[in-house]
């Protein structure tokens, strides 16, 4: 797999690392079929395939930004490998005992576990935890911790009589979020060994 990369791809990577959205669009367009077909051929729906592909692009972007990032294969192979791994994870989350062989249409590389995995798990757990939370907790926490709104704005928006009431509500919400976040995060981890077992 350690073949020399075509010169042009290095340029593509440099453009991507510089945050060039036009290039990202081309890369997105070019590799969509390969990854989406793979997921459709392995038990995924169109929606799941699209979501996983977008997740693949996100992981790809994150990996690009890591220090000392080096690509030893084509972008296509790399994206296929990331997408494959993400889909495998998704299958594991659905059922821990999938033993079905995957239908591969491309060569792929084993993707090493790194920081992006943790970030991916974190995102997944946070998303799940927020989903489970329900309203108004979800919006309050999102407004405060994610959108950076102040407590005053939240007090007004949600119609609390004073900031202390809003604070108290936020505190209760956070407690619940914390509980379900760590539950999902600690139990939901799919380890690399698990992915490679079959």
């Amino acid at each position: 797999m350690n073949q020399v990369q075509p010169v042009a791809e290095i340029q593509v990577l440099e453009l991507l690392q510089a945050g060039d959205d036009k290039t990202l669009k081309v890369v997105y367009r070019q590799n969509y079929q390969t990854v989406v077909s793979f997921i459709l051929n392995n038990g995924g729906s169109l929606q799941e395939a699209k979501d996983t592909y977008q997740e693949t692009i996100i992981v790809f972007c994150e990996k690009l930004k890591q220090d000392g990032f080096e690509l030893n294969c084509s972008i296509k192979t790399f994206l296929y490998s990331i997408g494959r791994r993400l889909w495998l994870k998704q299958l594991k989350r659905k059922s821990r005992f999938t033993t079905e062989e995957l239908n591969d249409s491309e060569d792929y590389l084993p993707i090493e576990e790194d920081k992006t995995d943790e970030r991916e798990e974190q995102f997944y757990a946070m998303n799940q935890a927020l989903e489970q939370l329900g309203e108004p907790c979800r919006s309050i926490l999102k407004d405060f911790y994610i959108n950076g709104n102040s407590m005053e704005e939240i007090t007004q928006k949600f119609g609390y009589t004073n900031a202390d009431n809003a604070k108290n509500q936020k505190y209760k919400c956070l407690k619940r979020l914390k509980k379900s976040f760590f539950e999902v995060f600690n139990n939901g981890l799919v380890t690399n060994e698990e992915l490679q077992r079959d």
Partner: protein
Amino acid sequence: MKNSREIDEIIERYCFGELTPEELRIFEQWLENDPQMLASVNDFLSLKNAFENYRERLALKKKIERIHEEVEYDLFNAPAPLKVVKSGKATKVIFGKERSYFSIAAAISIFLLSAVSLSLWIFGNGSSKNQNAYRELRREVEKIKKNQKEIIKGINADDVKGELKQFTGTGFAITKDGYVLTSYHVVQDAKQIYISNESVGQLQAEVVYSDKSLDLAMLKIKEDSFPGFKEIPFALKKSISDPGEKVFTLGFPREDLVFGDGSISSYTGFEGDTTAYQISIPVNPGNSGGPLFDNQGNLIGIISGKNESVEGASFAVKSKWINDYINSKNDDNAILLPANKLLIGVDRATQIKRLKEVVFMVRVFN
């Protein structure tokens, strides 16, 4: 002693760096002596980290979703090729079994005559559409190449080999409970099929049965919570229509519904094929599988292809054959053929308004 809310607030302010120097000094001392507190702080830091990560990813996701929307048309704009037939060749579309003998005979000739007979064989095998598919595919790839060149000069050509595995065509509901009719060549070798239009959104479907020689395929919606279509407004006409009669079709040669009208030109389709009409509606790839209606809005056929060498000569399988075919497959009476008269005596615009609810774009993944 402080209550747990106050402690949590202090932890939060500590993690956000909001403690006063005095508070910080006391709190750090506290941390040293209380491993429980240290664990709580670490938990909050993980949570804070997760919030930040969530925000970043959400922004990235938004950006990528926008990119998706921008390229979506390109991604799905690969209409199923129409079955294009060429006149002036020795072979002929023959209905039923006879046709396959032709393919065999023609297939043998490929060994004997090689290159010269290649085009004949491709046609005789009923796969002239593949030729066309190839052309479509090539056009698409060239487009990608062009896009690519605008950004990076001299990209390695190998990376541009996009495999086009998606096709689009047209289909229409034939029962309220989810049976949809389209052309066989639209859903040929399909692994997954989706139908979509404005009113139903996107639904997954599967082939129930199909017939290659009639170029018909019956699909059924396979969504668990499918509420059913609107009332099928038209009736299926069982008798034959005559040349000169005005007809119209609705289809998805592009991502929006397109209307086309003309008249029946002949009782027979390509080279005397009695299962089809020749019609004078200009059709394009993507129109395949579209319904053909007469003035009263009766279903009289289904668009199947066009003659490549004659302008404005398109073909549609006659509704009589659709009727006979469905009846031959319909032992369990699963399909009650539509016989509604909601389109009679109303103007074209109203007819189309009612019909567009039950005409869909068919997306196929091979």
